[in-house]
């Protein structure tokens, strides 16, 4: 039912998952993110692009409060998930992260078996009652991450023994196993070869049917290929945010134009 909508590059009024208002992030004395306002829709792939050090990864990590683990990092402003302020004192970041999954730049499977990698999330969140149900979740997640056929015969093998692309898809399977609502991906393809990259991109496009996906990428082609919405960050500012087609073909801001034509970086 969503497929018909999403197959077209059309962004109509969808539910807003994340809405950020006036977000500031400081690393000690460094002001890393300045006045960022953004709205991330459900069942949409949103790409964050921009030169290195522009703050796109930092902002992504604000969305599931991964920046909490960095002592010197301070976040101000208002970020809401389904209308709830995620930086409210009453919010447990652990519960938030169960709803907002994350895939990292470098594939980081646990040094455990493939099965245990995927089963870890469901186990700690108590999503499965019994072994059969857990098996089912693991299979479903691996299938969604398009890696089931490659690993179904060796679920007991260590996840770290897979190739880079397989590891990253395993990490995606691990992230979707906890049934998150939003999937954050921090340059998921930067460590992968072109074939693995295209596999992961295909996968992202499929994930869009179930999740809201936010992807940070250095590759503008990748952003153009997989996303419906694109946000361009520069020097900590969110310069431009809009439909991907519009950003790449008719940017309003000249900095965006300079970046996508390769003049600033």
């Amino acid at each position: 039912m969503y497929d018909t909508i999403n197959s077209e590059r059309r962004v109509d009024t969808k539910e807003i998952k994340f809405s950020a208002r006036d977000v500031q992030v400081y690393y000690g004395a460094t002001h890393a993110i300045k006045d960022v306002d953004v709205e991330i829709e459900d069942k949409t792939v949103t790409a964050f692009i921009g030169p290195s050090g522009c703050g796109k990864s930092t902002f992504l990590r604000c969305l599931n409060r991964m920046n909490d683990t960095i002592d010197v990092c301070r976040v101000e402003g208002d970020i809401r998930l389904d209308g709830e302020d995620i930086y409210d004192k009453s919010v447990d970041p652990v519960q938030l992260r169960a709803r907002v999954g994350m895939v990292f730049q470098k594939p980081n499977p646990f040094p455990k078996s493939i099965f245990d990698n995927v089963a870890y999330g469901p186990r700690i969140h108590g999503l499965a009652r019994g072994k059969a149900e857990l098996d089912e979740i693991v299979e479903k997640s691996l299938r969604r991450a398009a890696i089931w056929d490659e690993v179904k015969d060796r679920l007991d093998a260590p996840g770290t023994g897979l190739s880079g692309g397989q590891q990253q898809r395993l990490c995606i399977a691990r992230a979707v196993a906890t049934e998150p609502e939003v999937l954050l991906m921090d340059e998921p393809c930067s460590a992968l070869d072109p074939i693995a990259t295209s596999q992961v991109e295909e996968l992202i496009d499929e994930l869009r049917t179930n999740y809201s996906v936010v992807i940070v990428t250095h590759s503008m082609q990748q952003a153009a290929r997989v996303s419906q919405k694109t946000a361009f960050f520069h020097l900590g500012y969110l310069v431009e945010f809009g439909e991907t087609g519009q950003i790449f073909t008719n940017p309003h801001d000249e900095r965006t134009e300079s970046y996508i034509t390769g003049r600033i970086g």
Partner: protein
Amino acid sequence: MTETGMTDDAPRGKKSLSVRDARTRRRNAAELRFRAYGIAAIAVGLFFLVVLAVSIVRSGLPAFTKTVADVEITVTEAEFEAAEAELFKTKAYVRLFIEKLQTQLGENRLEVAFDAAAIGRIMGKVGGTMREFYRENPSELGQPVAFQLAASSRVDGYFKGRVTREALQDSRFLQLSDLALVDALEEAGIIRQTFNWTFLTGADSGVDNPGGAGIGASVVGSFFMMLVVLFLSLPIGVAASIYLEEFAPKNRFTDLIEVNISNLAAVPSIVFGILGLAVFIQFMHLPQSAPLVGGLVLTLMTLPTIIISTRASLKSVPPSIRDAALGVGASKMQAVFHHVLPLAMPGILTGTIIGLAQALGETAPLLLIGMVGFVARGYPDGLIAGFTEPNSAMPAQIYTWAARADASFYEKAWGGIIVLLVFLLSMNILAIILRRRFERRW
């Protein structure tokens, strides 16, 4: 000249790859020298190791044998009563002993003249031993009884080559004339060397009885101390490191703690000893000379070592693993206990074993809590007594023996070192097996 070299058509220093230029030769020579230094360093290390091992084994092995005299004696009831009726009863027994010994020697066609004093110098208080035995076991009267008598320290030394004839010129403990009897006894197969179980199983003996001294009791003391150290310092150390490394805010106060832990690792152990004396014995009134107190003191000493190595191994776990766990919604504690700690486990075990080995070999702090010196209580009766009854520890026992005058105690000190090293090696092997098991899981 340089200009001509820069022109395009000039050959760009075409050199054969099989001819080494001066720079390459220098580089290779430097590498070769460095390798030679390395090999030399390892060779020197190995040489000292071999020297150490050989000297320990050579000096220590005699401690594992002892010289005994096996004499089979039959004392009839009449002889027993006659001896008991005398004024100097033990002398009567010695007389009986000499008679039997004479006949045994005669059977072997060995004729040596000797008196009771010589027997005393060679085998110690034979009369007392015999009298005690027959008074306790009157049923053995009239039957042949095999007495095994420990030879005196100097006879033992004579057999092990420690005591020479020259050294006995004017000795009042063992005289040159006695050696004829000793030789005859050896020829008759009465006096011989056997494995010294007493050394492995016994407790410390008085200064005048080196033959009866054993390290067993202090092995037990060390064992109980290590139990205390392990069960206190491992959980406390690991918990402290995990908190400091993973949970504690990084501020001036935690920095101060960190610096102090590093400093504590370098504090001389005798300082911990006097601290233990003041706190555990004088203030808390824990029993003196007890392995419990020794263990507590050594725990204080071992904690910094364990904390430092545990923190180092926690630090070496890649942060991506923590991110991965947090990213799927694990709590901080789940991330640490499910993922970080198992990966850090081999390093933690290594640190623990280094700390325990240090504690096992420590003598100075034990000096101050009364575990060094003559603590001949023997084996503790029961598990709790093992912690609370006065005992010594292996290094303390070795130190005590090395300080005694009799040369056979010196030999025992070396033997004690062998036992200590075996204890240490088995501890390390256990740790290596455990570490392998943890490593194999990943």
